[in-house]
């Protein structure tokens, strides 16, 4: 591109950026979205507070006679007394003895209980605690139970063995969460429940954000092009700048405006999440559970979002610019907005599926397809493991596709504009594209 070409592209981009960011719609939508994002960011804290305030019914079973009852007594006095100071005597746990593990598990499945705790005695005399639940046990409470289990283990050791014939064995403690998909898969370690929930939340946020922003800012591009045609400023424009300068400048300007909005929406939300961890710790005592909400939001993931947003936007914006250039009136945009969003919607579903941790062939495939990878790969990156080469293929394909689609869009745009005032017959249109 020549110096004059760069200058014009920049002028067009700057005009678009200024017009967007100075508009009232931009201001209001930014405020609204930023507010929503902050509310979403506060959800984990809210959940933690609500979780703290409810009494969780937990079944206790044991193969050793009497052990369940002793453990219940210990944990009841230990856990409920401990927290009653902070929460004005409200109980945190309600322990119920169950005759066997199977009955207890069934009660958990039926929703009668939050969790079922099974206590076994190992060969070395140490106790083993297994807590079965279906996503109902928060990280905080799981941690409390672990504390309780430790207390039970210590008392058990001192009672059964006043001397030192048996060394103290730290009780083993594990949580089985049947609500997380990978639980129960043999040979595969279960995700830490809290970490998994965090990854899912972060994944959902990124998928929804990518989808909304690409479609929404894409529509900005299309409506901007249509507005230039309907306000008839187009003829003046194309007598002053080349189609390439106009298309690239518009995509650049609106993309920067979009990125500005996304940043203005995300930054307060991230700050809120960080702060809410502190607030939570201050209110409820230190805890690693809330920190986990942010743990999935790594700098790497943010960088990936940035890369996919920029490339994905360029791709969608080029398509939307081409579509807009074929329309003459803003009313026409309403009728094509839905069909235009179909490619994005088609990528949205595999992205949502990928959030469940699934890595089926379809999802893998969709995470390489340039139109879909901005959603699907983001989703995969958030929840699960992605091989480095997969990321390279996905981004590489996108990088290759963007200039090709942009070039095609420039041709369509030129044809769409050259058909000025003519009813667009497919034949003249095709000729204009090929001739362009």
């Amino acid at each position, binding site marked *: 591109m020549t110096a004059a070409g760069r200058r014009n592209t920049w002028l067009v981009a700057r005009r678009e950026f200024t*017009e967007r960011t100075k*508009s009232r719609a931009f201001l209001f939508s930014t405020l609204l979205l930023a507010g929503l994002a902050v509310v979403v960011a506060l959800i984990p804290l809210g959940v933690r507070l609500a979780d703290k305030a409810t009494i969780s019914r937990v079944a206790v079973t044991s193969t050793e006679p009497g052990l369940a009852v002793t453990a219940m007594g210990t944990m009841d006095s230990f856990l409920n007394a401990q927290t009653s100071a902070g929460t004005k005597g409200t109980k945190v746990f309600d322990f119920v003895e169950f005759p066997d593990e199977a009955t207890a598990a069934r009660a958990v499945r039926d929703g009668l209980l939050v969790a079922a705790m099974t206590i076994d005695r190992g060969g070395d005399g140490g106790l083993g605690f297994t807590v079965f639940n279906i996503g109902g046990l928060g990280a905080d409470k799981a941690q409390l139970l672990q504390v309780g289990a430790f207390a039970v283990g210590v008392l058990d050791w001192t009672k059964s063995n006043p001397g030192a014939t048996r060394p103290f064995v730290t009780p083993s403690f594990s949580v089985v969460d049947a609500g997380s998909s990978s639980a129960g898969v043999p040979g595969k370690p279960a995700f830490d429940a809290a970490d998994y929930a965090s990854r899912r939340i972060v994944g959902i946020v990124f998928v929804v954000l990518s989808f909304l922003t690409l479609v929404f800012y894409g529509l900005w591009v299309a409506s901007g092009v249509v507005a230039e045609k309907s306000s008839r400023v187009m*003829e003046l424009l194309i007598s002053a700048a080349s189609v390439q300068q106009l298309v690239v400048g518009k995509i650049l300007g609106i993309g920067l405006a979009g990125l500005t909005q996304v940043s203005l929406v995300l930054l307060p939300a991230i700050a809120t999440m960080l702060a809410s961890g502190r607030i939570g710790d201050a209110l409820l005592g230190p805890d690693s559970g809330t920190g986990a909400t942010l743990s999935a939001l790594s700098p790497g993931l943010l960088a990936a979002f940035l890369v996919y947003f920029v490339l994905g936007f360029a791709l969608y914006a080029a398509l939307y610019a081409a579509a807009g250039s074929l329309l003459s009136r803003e009313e026409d945009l309403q009728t094509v907005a839905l069909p235009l969003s179909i490619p994005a919607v088609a990528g949205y579903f595999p992205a949502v599926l990928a959030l469940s941790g699934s890595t089926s062939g379809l999802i893998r495939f969709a995470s390489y397809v340039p139109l879909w990878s901005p959603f699907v790969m983001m989703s995969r990156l958030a929840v699960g493991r992605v091989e480095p080469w997969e990321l390279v293929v996905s981004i590489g394909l996108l990088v290759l596709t963007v200039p090709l689609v942009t070039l095609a869009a420039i041709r369509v745009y030129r044809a769409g504009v050259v058909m*000025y005032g003519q009813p667009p017959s497919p034949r003249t249109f095709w000729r204009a594209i090929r001739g362009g």
Partner: protein
Amino acid sequence: MALVVDHLQKRFGSVVALDGLTFEVAPGQVFGFLGANGAGKTTTMRITMGVLEADSGSVTWQGTESHRLPRSTFGYLPEERGLYPRMRVLDQLLFFAGLHGVPPDRARREALAWLRRFRAEDLIGRRAEQLSKGNQQKIQFVAAVLHEPPVLLMDEPFTGLDPVNVALLREAFLELRDRGRTVVFSTHQMEVAEALCESVAIVDRGRMVVGGPLREVRRSTGRRMVRISVADDHRLPWLAKVPGASVIQAGMDRTTVELEPGLEPDEVLAAAVGAGARVLHFEVADPSLEQVFIDHVGRPADEEIHLAPLAEGAA
């Protein structure tokens, strides 16, 4: 070297918009491009600007095809007026001048000077959507000239302007010509062209009908006429006794009389004096451009033609 429109051919579907249109504009002239709606004026300008592509033929300026020239060669006022509705006037002017490579400070200075001469400096901070049509048109004119293009293409620049603004724009045209610019404008208002143009081209249905220096075009019909004004009786009863003389335009002040071949102007004057009329004004005149147009095209330029689909249809 001139602006040469050479055998332009353009069809829109079954409608022939330009049918081998050919004419030439000498540099440094004000040139009138005359025709009714649908004659092909806008299509010709759009092809020159590269907004449309010709099926065949070319437009060249100083020997180079127009679409190979830098865009800033031309200053274009499109027939379809349009500005960014929500953008302020000065910002728009700086934006368009910037696209043509004019630095902001110079563009600002020039823009202010032009707005002052159009008595529109108070518009500078307004949004385009707040302006009247006439004011928008003035702003667009300024947008077209800020980069000082050698060639100005103005599509119906006088349409929609009030008489004061028409006068201001005329002056601007003449000044631009004096600065060495070539000004081409299309119009269907013959009196404007008559007052401004060194040369004109009359087009009809995509073809050149007659063109050249204004005086030659006016004489192109071979018709001769005199314009006479007498005191007291403007009905000129004595004229009936002059064979070969017929009134083609009666007026309270001046009456235009057409002379058939063989009848000389002084015979009319002699008849008037002989009849005792007090002659206040007598002039051997060429037919007006309006009459020339009607003679060549068969109808006035501002009469809408209703050919099935209009060549410039949607425009």
